[in-house]
């Protein structure tokens, strides 16, 4: 079973994660909308292409709104990371074996998520340390050229993501303890020995980053317009799919071990 097929066999998982992500983003935008609406009172701004001027004036008059903006942005980042960690065990389980359906599957999903949470958090921490180390390595390898440094950094960060996925898959699907750094380093070594794995996972990671970038570009080009919102939501669903695919690549690799 290849990785893509694993994802296609669990459409409910994909749709559920999409709904979670869309709901979260929509929910986090509501305090922002509420704060602006309250500050506007009965006032009206009519030029949709000069929102910067209106916002500048509003922020001068109500600097507290900026706090709401920043708080919502930080919350979305933290929640995104927390939820990703929380569902990681269940996602790996479902991608590893999609045969169970119905309530039992959800119960298994919950057990796998919560049961593996501490170890997966530890693997995430190892990944964070590795990313920091690799950032320094990229800087040292690339010398003074910022662009080369960026390329090397991207390569190394995709490596860290792939290694983290593999270590997590081994923990959830093969029951490895995953606590000792040695196990994480073994996953790193396996990724280094398997360029195809690194390439597949890296390409999917890059595609997901590209989609995140595309969402930003669309949001800026269509600031405040409905088409931009729907495009962003659609792309976000594609990003979730790509993320599942990337995890499935690690699942596939762990099955081959």
């Amino acid at each position, binding site marked *: 079973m290849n990785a893509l097929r694993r994802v296609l066999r669990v459409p409910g998982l994909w749709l559920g994660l999409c709904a979670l992500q869309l709901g979260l983003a929509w929910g*986090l935008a509501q305090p922002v909308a509420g704060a602006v609406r309250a500050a506007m009172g009965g006032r009206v701004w009519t030029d949709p292409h000069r929102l910067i001027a209106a916002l500048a004036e509003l922020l001068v008059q109500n600097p507290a709104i900026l706090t709401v903006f920043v708080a919502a*942005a930080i919350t979305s980042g933290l929640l995104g990371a927390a939820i990703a960690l929380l569902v990681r065990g269940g996602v790996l389980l479902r991608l590893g074996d999609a045969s169970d359906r119905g309530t039992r599957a959800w119960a298994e999903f919950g057990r796998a998520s919560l049961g593996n949470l501490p170890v997966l958090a530890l693997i995430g921490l190892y990944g964070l340390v590795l990313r920091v180390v690799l950032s320094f390595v990229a800087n040292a390898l690339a010398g003074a050229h910022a662009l080369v440094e960026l390329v090397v950094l991207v390569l190394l960060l995709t490596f860290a993501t792939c290694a983290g996925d593999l270590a997590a898959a081994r923990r959830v699907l093969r029951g490895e303890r995953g606590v000792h750094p040695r196990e994480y380093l073994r996953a790193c070594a396996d990724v280094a020995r398997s360029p195809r794995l690194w390439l597949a996972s890296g390409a999917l990671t890059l595609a997901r980053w590209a989609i995140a970038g595309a969402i930003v570009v669309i949001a800026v080009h269509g600031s405040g317009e409905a088409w931009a919102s729907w495009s962003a939501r659609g792309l976000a669903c594609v990003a979730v799919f790509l993320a599942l695919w990337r995890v499935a690549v690690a699942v596939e690799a762990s099955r081959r071990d």
Partner: protein
Amino acid sequence: MLAVGSRLLRRAAACALVGAVACEPGPPPERRVAEPVDPLRPLDVRGPIPAGIKLADYVLDASLDAEKHTVTGTARITWRNSTRAPVDALVLHLYMNGFRAEDTAWMAEARGSHRGARQDKGEGKWGYIDVRAARLLAQGPSADFKAPEQRDAAATPLTLVEGADPSLGSLALPRPVGPDETITVELDFFTQLPRVFARTGYDGEFHMVGQWYPKLAVRHEGGWQAHVFTLHSEFYADFGDYDVHLDVPEDMVVGASGVLVEERPPEGGRKRLRYRADTVHDFAWAASPDFLEYGDTWRDVRIRQLVPRALAGDVQRHLDAQVAALESMDARFGPYPWSTITIVHPPESAGGAQGMEYPTFFTTSDILRVPLPLRLLGIHELLTGEFTTIHEFGHQYFQGLLASDEATQPWLDEGINSFSNTLALDDWLGDDATIARIGNQRVSTIDMIRVALQTAAELDPVDRRAEDYRDFTGTFGGTVYRKTAAVFHTLRALVGPEKFDRAFRIYCDTWRFRHPTGADLRAALLREIGPKVRISDTGPDGQPVDLDVADYLAQAIETTASVDFAVTRVANRRAVGDAGWRRGQDGALALIEPEPAPEGEELGDEASEGFALIVREGEFRVPVEIEFAFKGGARERLWWDGQARYRVFTFPGKKLAGVAIDPDDKLLLEGERLDNRVRGPGQRTPDGLSDPVARFHEAMDLAVLGGLGL
């Protein structure tokens, strides 16, 4: 081989990643156009120069030591006393001494910072000018104007005494200079340039030589108009002709005020250049071996750009801006009189020299390099480079040609120039020109001015001396530049562009080369526009609404009053009916009961009365237009004279759906606009801001979640 391969690999990777940035083409080939013969445009193009306005002629002979960054020279100044009183001493500006020590007036106010840039530390941070000898060469009805090589053995030695602040000095004369008498003095000076800071100085081999020679103050009937050089004060001087001889290293490319009239063959690694600038009040120059030269012409005006190689890709954009400025200002403010304009691009490391004007010469600033990812966001701006070029060229009119006293009334130059810049941008790019764009959002010239009004324009009035603006308040830019521009944009919108433009053109034509004051400008506008301008024939009570131009200008320029109107209440209520006890024809009282009717918004139009409370929250009294929107889609506009503190507008038989103050955005002086447009009761129209902001935020959340999550 491996190293070469590695280098190629690195380059290829870089190009593949951000091709447009990393593989930018080399600089375009240099192009030169012939040096104009005459520093002035032909008489039939530029018009006559008023007689008797040239009072101070200079022969400057200077040598640049590019390694020590010093200029050694002589200044031979011939000055005519145009006042009715004899003058027994000459007062000189020694501007470079403003950078001599921490306790000069300039440095004490700036505390080592100018326009956000810090003064360098260590060696080379200080600049100064030392007048080492002074001589009286001639005095009488017409003084000599000799070539610098000719020394006068019979010269009388003079002594220059520095003032309490070293940016001023005076030369006592053995015999007073009588009315209409002329005197020629010669001064030997030595100028140490600082590392680039506050418009002047050196950076490596780049030298920006401004405020570099002893310069006469202006004599008025009341005495010398000599201003200590302070942080915000710029310059004021008499017109004259400049004959300037520069001795520089052979490899230097030099740009200067005026035109090059002679270049001697290099000798001993140095070359000698001679420039002539006619009817100007200052002379500046820049030199660097790294300059590339790009020459173009606009009509009969030579445009010369001197650009470091790294910035040469920007010359076309600056040229477009320069041509746009010439097209606009030549048509609006009268013909540009000189035959040349030189634009110097200081290197990126010499930012302190950017954005400064001198006659027929200015320095511009770099165009912001937008990285590729940001370019994908649709970021485009004219603020950093093009705007600077337009702004600094605009000074050729208000600082160079009208030449008001910038130290006493800085708004006459910086403020009026800022006003003219937005007109030039609108002429170039269309009304309400976009000067910055991010995605589908834009920032216009109006936004740029208005944002500054909110934060800085209410502490100081426009008409203040430059030295009275304190650096701490941060009001100089907002008040002098932006508020002044807003004052004249608002006046133009209220009286009508045609009427205003004609009046302003007459002001410019009348005062070319004549150093107008603020009173002169106000008098010209009052005379040409009229003391009162009819804004509307029918105000809210049927009476006409007029603008009192003198009162408007007095409030705008002399006070800190701000324009601020707000819609504070919009409602619909039951119209006054006929219920109650009334006398009938027989004289007896009879009770009339009202028809049962719904309340509030359920009332029909005919039984309703819309009313709106408009409050003048600012102290500034000015007519304002108000648009009332009614249920059913009808609209009505009314002018209110804005004299009272508030005004209640009532509309029997109509229900209000919304109110908009100044719907056509004529009052640019009004910094706060959000409270100008209010929806009526019961209206569910969106506020126009919260939904777009929420949508944008949601999309950003999705990007973060998509990029980080899982």
